[in-house]
């Protein structure tokens, strides 16, 4: 019996949105399994992942303070700084591309965009890696727990001037973003709340190179203040509890999940469903299970442009390309830079943009160039092994494309004897750039 278009769309979406796209052969299995079973398997995979075999931890260490600019040690220091940064970035790309069960990578990628912290300011790889581990460990767990750990995170503290927020004169940077971008969303607090939150977050000291944050009660402003209507003396931990228990927090987390996994348009009913499923502890796993079960998750209108890293990793997974082996690491990061998205380096604390912002001339050009490199390095046998007449369908399944326009079918069919060109065109086609 032929599979319904709706079911194929749902399966494609599960792979695209939750798994960075299928590995070769996976899409057909997913279709056989059905969307319901596939969704469960993607969110609750087996614990061991043979795909990650051989990927160790990245080399990140405490490089100490910046040596004097004129000293000989400075040049070596700068090289170490760069090599640890590049190592960390490529390490994560490799994990994303190779994981057989990529939900942990995908969720951590989401949280990276949520608590968007950039190595361009933090500079050291070690605190960025420590932050990464905090998000990874909590990526499908309790948001409250994650927020508690994040508020003492050295990279986040440094990024938002936390160490400079003092009793004498609070610096509002971290307090504001904690309310606006991390827990409640814009419009759900007053300017007075921002000022009060900043006072509640005083008392931190950050050593950037080691990623160590210390908190001192003596340097903390413990006076009675009002945050969101609640009058008391706060410390950072009780502030985070207060914010995450606020009824708006669950709605906000639900909206952010919807925005990144489904669509920039957030429908009220679905948000309420997901928000309720978060429960008292703000259980992210439960929210994701609720999200993929909504009818709207399978609605064709909820299309989404793949962010550059998502597009790249999708291609790498389908073509069995290991990012660290695709030419030089610097060159790959440069290419991602020209696409506008490099891991560990979001443009601002608001994270990366969405949808049409990625559909520029510059991106179109950079995508063509990177697609050619991917095809050159990639394993094309899933297509070359097929009869020429089956190749267009084979490409759709390889990349997990729900449906192809006549335009793209015609364009691919015209070059079906030239598989590298065929795969390159598929990668840059609107069907592969946009996840419908």
């Amino acid at each position, binding site marked *: 019996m032929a599979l319904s278009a709706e079911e194929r769309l749902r399966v494609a979406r599960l792979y695209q949105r939750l798994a960075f796209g299928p590995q070769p052969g996976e899409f057909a299995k997913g279709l056989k399994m059905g969307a319901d079973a596939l969704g469960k398997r993607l969110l609750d995979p087996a614990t061991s992942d043979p795909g990650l075999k051989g990927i160790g931890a990245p080399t990140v260490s405490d490089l100490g303070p910046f040596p004097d600019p004129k000293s000989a040690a400075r040049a070596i220091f700068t090289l170490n700084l760069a090599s640890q940064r590049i190592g960390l970035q490529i390490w994560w790309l490799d994990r994303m591309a190779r994981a057989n069960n990529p939900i942990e990578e995908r969720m951590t990628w989401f949280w990276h965009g949520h608590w968007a912290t950039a190595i361009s300011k933090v500079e050291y790889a070690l605190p960025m890696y420590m932050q990464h581990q905090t998000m990874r460990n909590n990526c499908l767990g309790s948001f409250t727990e994650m927020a508690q750990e994040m508020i003492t995170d050295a990279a986040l503290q440094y990024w938002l*001037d936390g160490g*400079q*927020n*003092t009793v*004498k*004169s*609070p*610096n*509002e*940077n971290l307090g*504001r973003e904690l309310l*606006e971008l991390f827990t409640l969303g*814009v*419009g759900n607090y007053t*300017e*007075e709340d*921002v000022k009060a939150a900043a006072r509640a977050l005083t008392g931190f000291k950050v050593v950037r190179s080691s990623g160590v944050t210390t908190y001192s009660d003596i340097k903390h402003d413990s006076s009675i203040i009002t945050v969101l209507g609640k009058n008391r003396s706060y410390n950072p931990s009780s502030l985070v509890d207060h914010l995450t228990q606020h009824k708006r927090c669950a709605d906000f987390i639900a909206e952010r999940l919807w925005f990144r996994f489904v669509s920039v348009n957030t429908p009220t009913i679905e948000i309420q469903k997901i928000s309720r499923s978060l429960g008292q502890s703000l259980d992210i796993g439960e929210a994701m299970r609720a999200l993929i079960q909504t009818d709207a998750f399978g609605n*064709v209108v909820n*299309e*989404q*442009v793949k962010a550059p890293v998502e597009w790249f990793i999708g291609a790498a997974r389908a073509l069995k390309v290991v990012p660290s082996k695709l030419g030089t690491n610097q060159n790959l990061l440069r290419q991602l830079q*020209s696409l*506008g998205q490099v891991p560990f380096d979001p*443009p*601002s604390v*608001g994270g990366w*943009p969405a*949808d*049409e*912002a*990625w*559909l*520029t*001339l*510059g*991106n*179109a*050009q*950079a995508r*063509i*160039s990177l697609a*050619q490199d991917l095809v050159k390095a990639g394993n094309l046998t899933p297509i070359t092994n097929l009869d020429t007449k089956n190749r267009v369908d084979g490409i759709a399944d390889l990349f997990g494309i729900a449906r192809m*326009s*006549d*335009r*793209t079918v*015609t*364009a*691919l069919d*015209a*070059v079906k004897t030239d598989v590298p*060109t065929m795969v*390159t*065109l598929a990668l*840059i086609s*609107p*069907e592969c*750039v*946009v996840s*419908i």
Partner: protein
Amino acid sequence: MCGEYLMDTLSRRKFLQLATGVAGSLTLGLSMEDIAQAAVARPLPAGTPILVIVTLYGGNDGLNTVIPYQDSTYYSLRPDISFGESEVLPIGEGLALNGSMTGMKSLWDQGKLAIIRGVGYPQFDHSHFRSMAIWQSGSPVSATSTGWIGRWLDTQPTDPMAAINLGSVLPPLFMGARRNGSAVPLTGLNLPKGSIALNCQHVAKSSTQDTPLQAVASESLRNLFSIGDEITPILKTPVPISSDLPTVQGGNAGGNSALSNQLDIVSKFVAAGAPTKVWSVSLGGFDTHADEKGAQSILVGSVSSSISRFMSQIQNTTRKNDVTVLVYSEFGRRVKANASHGTDHGTSGPVFVIGNRINGGFYGDQPSLKDLDQGDLKITSDFRTVYATLADEVLKTPAERILGSWMPRYDLFNKK
């Protein structure tokens, strides 16, 4: 229509090149003829106004840009990050430009710089993202996903060259309901070589089966091939000379900053007569929560030198009276300094409008440092008045079509 026509001719030309083997590779490696051809293929009619929008990301500290240096409150609220009389460039009414802004001061003295004071919008939002979205949408009252330039594009014939943002990501400013502006990376466009180029155009064709975002994706791919041909040769032309600026180490002052590199590209296109009516360039780093004083001088100094250098380059072209530059940021900063020798997010700030046709001087009232709104400057001018004036005078499009009904205007342009 225009865009489609262009696309057809370029595709045909490329096809002929391929078919005859003249360009064995489509590197767009360029002869002088190509460059000349690009410049004159469909130039902007003489006298067509051009708008250059400079966005300062992060919230520029207006009080340390246009400085109330004779107001004792300024010094008492900002003991460590204020600029004294000896450090600033007085421009009258108790105000002075930051001492690093010598280029802007010169434009002020020439009567080419208008400073609109206390600019903002009602119910001010202190979020970078929300406030920037409001400035770029031009709609403080109701949230909209389109930008004010995007809505102008909606009124124009299709042309991917009409509005160009320099940078690889498209800002909301350039998003229209029916079409978007283009975003071009600073490095230019290197189109693919060989048969892949022709094949790419096959997957770039429009299809009625495309979803809305797929249609935008295919359009961006089409535009890459249609305007890549036009853009690349212009990028290879030299930057127009700015003969009246001092030379520093072999280059003009203000060169090689992130902003001047972008404006160099704009000046090349303007000089070449490119059919682009709106440009968008940007500079980040204005979120000076800590250690502001030195950083602020460097930032506004860079804005000042880049723009004065650009204006100087334009003076050597036939378009010198056609270019208007708008400079804005999402908000000014808190009046009182914080303990990190920086400032937190504030409200209103000055907007600069620059051009040969500008009636230089002050517009709007300087917000008081004593009569504050919860520690913030009051809003004395509305950005919609600036935008509406630019819509009338530069975009030559009824402001109603972009901003709805908004009546006030500034007398920014001399009509001679």
